[in-house]
């Protein structure tokens, strides 16, 4: 058991809260649950925008230079001409797609939505430590969202230098032709970073100081652990990106030469700064997903998490190792070759904790009593997709193989398996799981299953062939593969992938439809307090919980995963219920 014991949180004061008006309930709110929901709607909006951009990209790759059906003629002149996507416009689409998905969809969903909603509820606190900072963090995110979207309307158009914005292309207007768009990108990333740092500071403070009595560190749900470690990664990594973005802005607009060789700057400095942030960032995108999935799998397998502490230590190890592997993005960047060899070794080792986690998930379903709810299907599929993404990472971690596949579609396949197959599937699962707590009503399970199966099929159809495209020699970020003779034979793969992507786009509307229908008649399928018979604290309060969360500060008696304890009538034991005298809980 941990030596850290929790102080009781300050009075949660549910009793006398006057009814608040619309503005203070939905727009400027200090309630962490509502802030989480604000993040949810905003990020789902960006998911639609980012997904639309991806479909345009895929359309162009499958059927290059043919007018985009339906929407082609509505595209701005910087992106398309006569309805067909032009090369410069293609670069903008790829850049904006990736930037939106990473900073405006996956991070806000995992960290903004679930971090805000779950942390106070799962540790027994009335709210976050700094509610005002919390709301500020949300609105900074919204501001950064406007800034990034504004780039589309800037003279010259949106930035087209990739989400990685390699200098000096990104740093000199004469090379990229989108001074304003690229500058807006830099400012948006900077403001978005402020939002992340504000949120992360809040999470760390809340987890350290506001746990309910009895909620020791090693009694925290893995979701909270994952978000806590993620928050630490955020405060360490994001400032580096913010600094780099500010330097880029100065290079673009103020005549400095941080990254411009003509003025004595170093193009590789940008890459080192970007990837020093960028690698921890990819783990920022997966750790909370691992936490959410662990929770769901334990609940629907009706089993304690196999190796709870191993899971925690593995996440800590990932967090630590994540800071010493950034060079694997730069094996062939012109960096010293011995450095590449060193980074290759550390990269191999970062796969170890991921393997440990996979084995522990398998251990958790072993001898369970598995119920295949939609949430569980997504969580189970997460594990398989994450294994594929992790295994493809090993190819690239091997320097000689990376010499062949670097910057090809193989990399694109890899990170979509971990980010879509991993993070996004986890987010879908978590939404089915916590929707009842958020909104007080249950999503439709039949539509949910349809959503799950179609997502699973179309996802693999869209992304598996990308491995072969990459090995076939197709580069990332090229507007038209058919200009190369050796890539022309790969066109069928590009078309299969695009069909899969279109299917995914279509399937998203089933999901949104499910949400809308459910919220529309929310009275007809109300959620009980604890629909899944789960142990964590959020299920001990009404759905949705009232202001201040807990009428009385809860006391925690044991860990969050006491499922199927022998000698108990029910197969779960909420954290607020002490085990009866005749029942012995296993140490973990």
């Amino acid at each position, binding site marked *: 058991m941990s030596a850290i014991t929790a102080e009781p949180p300050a009075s949660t004061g549910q009793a006398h809260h006057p009814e608040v008006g619309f503005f203070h309930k939905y727009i400027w709110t200090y309630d962490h649950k509502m802030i989480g929901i604000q993040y949810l709607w905003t990020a789902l909006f960006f998911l639609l925008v980012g997904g639309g951009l991806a479909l345009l990209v895929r359309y162009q790759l499958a059927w290059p230079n043919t007018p985009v059906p339906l929407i082609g003629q509505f595209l701005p002149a910087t992106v398309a001409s006569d309805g067909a996507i032009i090369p410069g416009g293609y670069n903008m689409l790829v850049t904006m797609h990736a930037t939106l998905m990473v900073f405006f969809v996956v991070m806000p969903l995992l960290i903004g939505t679930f971090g805000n909603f779950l942390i106070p509820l799962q540790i027994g606190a009335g709210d976050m430590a700094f509610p005002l900072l919390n709301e500020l963090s949300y609105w900074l995110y919204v501001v950064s969202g406007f800034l990034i979207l504004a780039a589309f309307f800037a003279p010259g158009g949106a930035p087209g230098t990739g989400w990685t914005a390699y200098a*000096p292309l990104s740093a000199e207007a004469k090379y990229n032709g989108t001074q304003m768009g690229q500058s807006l990108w830099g400012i948006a990333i900077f403001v978005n970073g402020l939002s992340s740092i504000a949120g992360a500071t809040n999470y760390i403070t809340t987890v350290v100081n506001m746990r309910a009595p009895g909620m020791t560190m090693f009694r925290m749900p893995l979701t909270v652990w994952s978000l806590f470690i993620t928050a630490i990664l955020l405060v360490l990594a994001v400032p580096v990106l913010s600094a780099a973005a500010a330097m880029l802005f100065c290079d673009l607009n103020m005549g400095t030469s941080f990254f411009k060789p003509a003025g004595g700057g170093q193009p590789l400095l940008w890459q080192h700064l970007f990837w020093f942030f960028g690698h921890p960032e990819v783990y920022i995108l997966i750790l909370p997903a691992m936490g959410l999935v662990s929770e769901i799998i334990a609940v629907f397998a009706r089993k304690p998490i196999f190796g709870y502490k191993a899971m925690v230590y593995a996440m800590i190890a990932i967090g630590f190792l994540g800071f010493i592997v950034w060079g694997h993005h730069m094996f062939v960047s012109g960096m010293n070759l011995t450095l590449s060899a060193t980074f290759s070794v550390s990269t191999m080792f970062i796969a170890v904790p991921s393997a440990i986690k996979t084995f522990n998930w398998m251990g958790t379903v072993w001898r369970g009593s598995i119920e295949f709810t939609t949430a569980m299907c997504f969580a189970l599929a997460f594990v398989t997709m994450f294994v594929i993404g992790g295994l493809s990472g090993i190819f690239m971690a091997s320097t000689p193989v990376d010499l*062949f596949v670097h910057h090809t579609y193989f990399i694109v396949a890899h990170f979509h398996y971990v980010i879509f197959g991993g993070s996004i599937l986890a987010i879908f699962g978590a939404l089915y799981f916590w929707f009842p707590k958020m909104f007080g009503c249950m999503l439709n399970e039949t539509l949910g299953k349809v959503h799950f199966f179609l997502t699973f099929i179309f996802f693999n159809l869209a992304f598996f062939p990308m491995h072969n495209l990459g090995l076939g020699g197709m580069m990332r970020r090229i507007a038209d593969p058919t200009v190369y003779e050796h890539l022309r034979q790969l066109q069928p793969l590009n078309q299969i992938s695009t069909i899969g992507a279109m299917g995914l786009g279509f399937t998203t509307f089933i999901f949104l439809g499910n949400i809308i229908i459910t919220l529309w008649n929310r009275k007809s399928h109300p959620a009980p307090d604890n629909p899944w018979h789960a142990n964590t604290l959020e299920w001990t309060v009404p759905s949705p919980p009232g202001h201040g969360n807990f009428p009385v500060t809860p006391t925690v008696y044991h860990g969050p995963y006491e499922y199927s304890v022998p000698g108990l009538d029910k197969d779960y034991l909420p954290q607020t219920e002490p085990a009866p005298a005749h029942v012995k809980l296993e140490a973990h």
Partner: protein
Amino acid sequence: MKFLLRLLPVLAFGLSPALAEQYNNLYWAPPNVTVGGEEIDKILNFIFWLTLLVFIATQAVYITYLVKYRRRPGVKAHYSHGNNKLEIIWTTIPVLIFLGLAIYSNRVWKELFRNPPPDALQVNISSYQFGWDFRYPGADGKLGEVEVKGITAENKFGVKADDPAAADDFTATELVFPAGKPVHIILNARDVIHSFYVPSFRLYQDAVPGRTISWVWFEVKEPINLELACSQLCGKGHYNMKAPIRVLSQEDYDKWFDGKVKAAAQARAMDDEKSLHAAAN
């Protein structure tokens, strides 16, 4: 439904290899043509079979559990928080495997980047938005040295003015060299980062402005025509930034070389004449 769950991965993963058979190649990869490239293919294959094995083994166990331990009335889950011995085993095994892989990879990496042989043909490659320039040593077989800071609009290659070896160098807009002979490239970029990428060579290397990359060399076994691609996003014309690669027999190469040397000598003579005229006027 559970049956479907099992069927899906099989379908998804069966698809790509099945299509690939048409091309007689599991990965759809273009055949390797360089001397060291097999080593990369070997390690790629090794990792492929290793990871396939791991994938099949873990998924077989996983799916078996999912089917076997699905909810059944009256059957309670087993209560267990884990097993430390198992944790140690499944931590140690991956550590050993990855350690082995890291050692294997680094050995090949070192081999690939050993110093180029002294008799290698040196070619200076200068990349720009959006194309490639190539510079070859002339009859003296020696390439004039490059000085990155000296790269200007007139001196595209940044050739050191006082280097006598540079006098007879000639330039081309395609990469031409003989099969069976090591080629050592000196890689520069004039504006933004580009990259030298030839999948059939199993080779990728960024060209960074402000730096000279001088550690890349390769040897192609047979004559072949290929395309050099830029694989680092470099602006609007990036997708079409390519140059022909012609690997010739020694004989054909010698012919091409002689023609180039003669043409270059003529061009220089004309230049000299012009400047003489200019001086006379």
